[in-house]
């Protein structure tokens, strides 16, 4: 198992290094000098030079890359070109909204998808199966931001159960904050739950047709016992991959949903940064998102190793 972990860890590090190189070089090829952009067209040459020095722009590319990377490792993401405040502060301010939102949505999606997928697979062809398949077919096709808008119309404007948007802050109390995140989380979760339920169903159907299920039945296990003791754990292995991919998607996809609900999360930060050409913020947020995706994939790989003894030894 240790060897397996080390191997995955090695892959994680390589991915991170290459990803950071890609992001850094992408942002660095941008035409235009942030310093002159920040100071406007009338700025004096020496003020620009001073600012360049202050921002660390006057050294070689390699040097800047290493400063950027070592900074990030120490939690220092640099200084925003526009606001002159540490990027790490700006990000952590926003993360307390975006991260809980993604986790909330993932939890909802899993809680809906697992039972739906299991019921559909075990009662193949039944009314329950057909309705799960029908609803998920629709769920996959609905853009989450549109679904969010519809929910705003119904639950916020007509029924007035929720506010139409905004975030009271965690200071307002856990439940008030969670309530504000509920509609966004549902909007994010619905299409994901649909995909997950379908994957769960087909994976479970595949597993249920395996030889070892027949062996279990021949031992005298009932259908239900076979399902819980033998099928589920095996069926879960491909489902884990999708959950991993979904977390990445939820984190990034949250950016769009945040716009519908006027949530001051990472999304708002990044769109502001794009309009203001605050590239260091863009660079850092993108790196953070990519880091999250890679980290989730790493965790999924480890979960694989736990779920499937075959992986611990080989590969």
């Amino acid at each position: 198992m240790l060897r397996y972990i080390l191997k995955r860890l090695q892959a994680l590090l390589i991915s991170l290094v290459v990803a950071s190189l890609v992001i850094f070089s992408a942002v660095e090829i941008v035409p235009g000098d942030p310093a002159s952009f920040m100071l406007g067209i009338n700025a004096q040459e020496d003020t620009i030079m001073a600012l360049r020095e202050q921002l660390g722009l006057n050294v070689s590319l390699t040097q800047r890359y290493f400063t950027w990377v070592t900074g990030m490792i120490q939690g220092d993401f640099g200084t925003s070109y526009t606001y002159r405040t540490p990027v790490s502060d700006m990000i952590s301010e926003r993360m307390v909204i975006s991260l809980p939102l993604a986790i909330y949505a993932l939890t909802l999606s899993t809680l809906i998808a697992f039972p739906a997928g299991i019921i559909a697979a075990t009662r193949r062809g039944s009314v329950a199966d057909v309705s799960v398949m029908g609803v998920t077919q629709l769920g996959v096709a609905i853009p989450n931001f549109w679904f969010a808008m519809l929910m705003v119309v119904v639950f916020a404007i007509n029924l007035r159960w929720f506010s139409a948007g905004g975030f009271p802050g965690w200071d307002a109390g856990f439940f008030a904050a969670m309530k504000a995140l509920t509609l966004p989380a549902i909007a994010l979760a619905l299409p994901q739950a649909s995909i997950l339920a379908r994957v769960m169903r087909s994976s479970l159907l595949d597993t249920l047709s395996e030889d070892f299920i027949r062996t279990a039945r021949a031992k005298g296990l009932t259908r239900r016992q076979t399902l819980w003791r033998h099928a589920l754990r095996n069926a879960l292995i491909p489902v884990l991959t999708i959950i991993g991919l979904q977390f990445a998607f939820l984190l990034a996809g949250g950016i769009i949903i945040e716009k519908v609900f006027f949530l001051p999360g990472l999304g708002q930060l990044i769109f502001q940064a794009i309009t203001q050409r605050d590239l260091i913020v863009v660079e850092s947020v993108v790196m953070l998102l990519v880091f999250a995706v890679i980290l989730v994939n790493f965790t999924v790989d480890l979960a694989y190793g736990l779920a499937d003894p075959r992986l611990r030894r080989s590969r």
Partner: protein
Amino acid sequence: MNAAHFLRSRSFMLGLILTLIFVFAALISFLWTPYEIDGVDIPNKLHAPAWPNLLGTDQYGRDVLSMIMVGARVSIAVALVAVTIGMVIGVPLGLAAAAKKGTWWDEIIMRGNDLVFAFPSLVIAILITAIFGASAINAIIAIGIFNIPVFARITRGGALSLWERDYILSARVAGKSPARISIEHILPNVMNLLIVQGTIQFSLGILAEAGLSFVGLGVQPPTPSWGRMLADSQTLVYSYAYLALFPGLAIVLTVLGLNLMGDGLRDIFDPKVRKSRT
């Protein structure tokens, strides 16, 4: 497999009809739309759906039905080009990786794939927009790049199982090169997989384009697109819900149509595969 199989598949036919409705709407919009959508017609703004503006007008007095027809062009074009990019680059990569299985070729292609997978298309779009500014091209490139590893992976997976087949060994014994075998034997036999995946990526592309345009990273005004129409309706949705309803329905129906087609195709292709095996 013949025409009867396609006609008999209910989900394929339903999906095909839904998809064709929007494809025709897009094609017709080049020649004719119920109203011009270039001009602003303030006196006629925000009409509720009724004759002659069947789906109503927006805050600039533009006919929503006409906008949806023109918007279909953008959605379909972006998704189609993105699928093409994904296939044209991803499929050869997948074939090559499978043909050179276990070598550093395979390793590099697959690790590259993993890396691209770590960049959700939204993130790629953000990067491109931050650098070059927003445009429809961004959306195409962002979605297209994300499609590459999808096709590479599915091609490699299908190809790997085929390379184990005896008929591939026979072809090698007949002295055919890996490249020739890939094109002559592997590609036709993974085509079914690719067609099914193609319809799925097409539908995902339409969703992604709508999302990118919704947040301003895609198509720019004044070109109408479904995502932009939804973004424009956001502030008006309280009193004019129909402005958000119809473009959203257009997206849902197109995506649903493509997904149904994909499911239908999978069912049509699959039993034959099973039959030839047993």
